[in-house]
């Protein structure tokens, strides 16, 4: 067992984990932050994407101990005083989800895409960079639309 401490959504959190505990298991099962989903558990689907130290990672493919001392942001950390993050609002406005299972990972990846490519990111880049996030409902068109709208809103 190891003790891990990290900032999760701006708050210091710590816990006892097995060495093999995945970051997503720590977030979901110990911190009860169940917004981060496990879809495939093989780093393909992207439902588990969170930000660690400012960049997107698949939390099913990182150990909790590897995030020790780091800053973690999950989907629960985006809204501000009950107001949705511009990217969350854009998914809502553009019907960017149907069943919603992939959505937390989609939103976290989308914000990462805007952080790296700017708010005028083009459609080809959005489609290419969403390749690590799988949605089985929407056919992606409205997700891409949502990412664009969210990107514009994030840019102010």
């Amino acid at each position, binding site marked *: 067992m*190891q003790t891990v401490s990290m900032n999760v959504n701006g708050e210091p959190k710590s816990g006892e984990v*097995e*060495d*093999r505990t*995945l970051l997503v298991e720590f977030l979901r099962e110990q911190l009860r932050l169940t917004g981060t989903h496990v879809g495939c*558990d*093989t*780093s*393909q689907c*992207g439902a588990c*994407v969170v930000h660690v130290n400012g*960049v*997107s*990672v*698949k939390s099913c*493919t*990182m*150990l909790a*101990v*590897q995030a020790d001392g780091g800053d973690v942001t999950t989907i629960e950390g985006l809204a501000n005083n009950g107001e949705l993050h511009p990217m969350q609002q854009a998914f809502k406005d553009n019907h960017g989800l149907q069943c919603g299972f992939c959505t937390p990972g989609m939103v976290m*990846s989308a914000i*990462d*895409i805007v952080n*790296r490519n700017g708010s005028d990111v083009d459609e080809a880049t959005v489609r290419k*960079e969403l*390749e*690590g*996030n799988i949605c089985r409902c929407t056919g992606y068109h409205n997700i891409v639309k949502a990412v664009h709208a969210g990107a514009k809103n994030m840019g102010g």
Partner: protein
Amino acid sequence: MYNFSYQKVSSVADAVDAIKKADDGKFVAGGQTMLPTMKHRLASPSDVIDLGGIDELKGISVDGDTVTIGAMTTHAEVAASSDVQGTIPALANLAGNIGDPAVRNRGTIGGSIANNDPAADYPAAVIGLGATIKTNKREISGDEFFTGMFETALEDDEVITAVLFPKAEASAYMKFENPASRYAIVGVFVAKSGDIVKVGVTGATACAHRGLRLEKALNGNFAAEAVDEVEIPVEKMNSDIHASAEYRAHLVKVMTKRAVEACS
């Protein structure tokens, strides 16, 4: 995943010390292959020694015509590096097309090369550019590093510290990627400096190799049509659900032609 004992080290010396003390230890770099492999119980090391805290293994520098990339530098860092883009753009481009963005934020060049997946991208560049692998013990030439499927020249307590890529006058990497995993079904890295052409091929055989027949044809005539007459031995090609041996042999030539065209 079976349990193991995790240890994070802050120097190469400590890493070597830890693996020597371990019963069946394994180094983890970015873990993007190793953790899935352990989850599938295809690997069950007693000790996992994390190289992620070793600062001396991180970073990119350019000295004259050589780009040195620390072993723990991520694919995202290589792809975004203006030093790499300015010196060997094909290498930055290759790194930016490995896996997906989240995988590129964790996966490292050292991990990719040490793992030597038959369909990994970096080995094609190591061979095509004639890179040198620097370890805590010695320097290994790219041609001698990859010895078989998931096998390398590395010893158990040997750690890759950096990869040194010489600049080529022109180079390009073309891959026919698996649409799901983005791994190379076949990838070809072509580099030209003066009259010398080198070709690194990945995805096609048990591990990345030099395309000597392709080099011979291209050395005399650096043009896509020079590839037409080259015979690619089908019996050495991988054959699986993604592509037959015959198809891979065909793709080797197509990817080589595209890379040659992209060089000029």
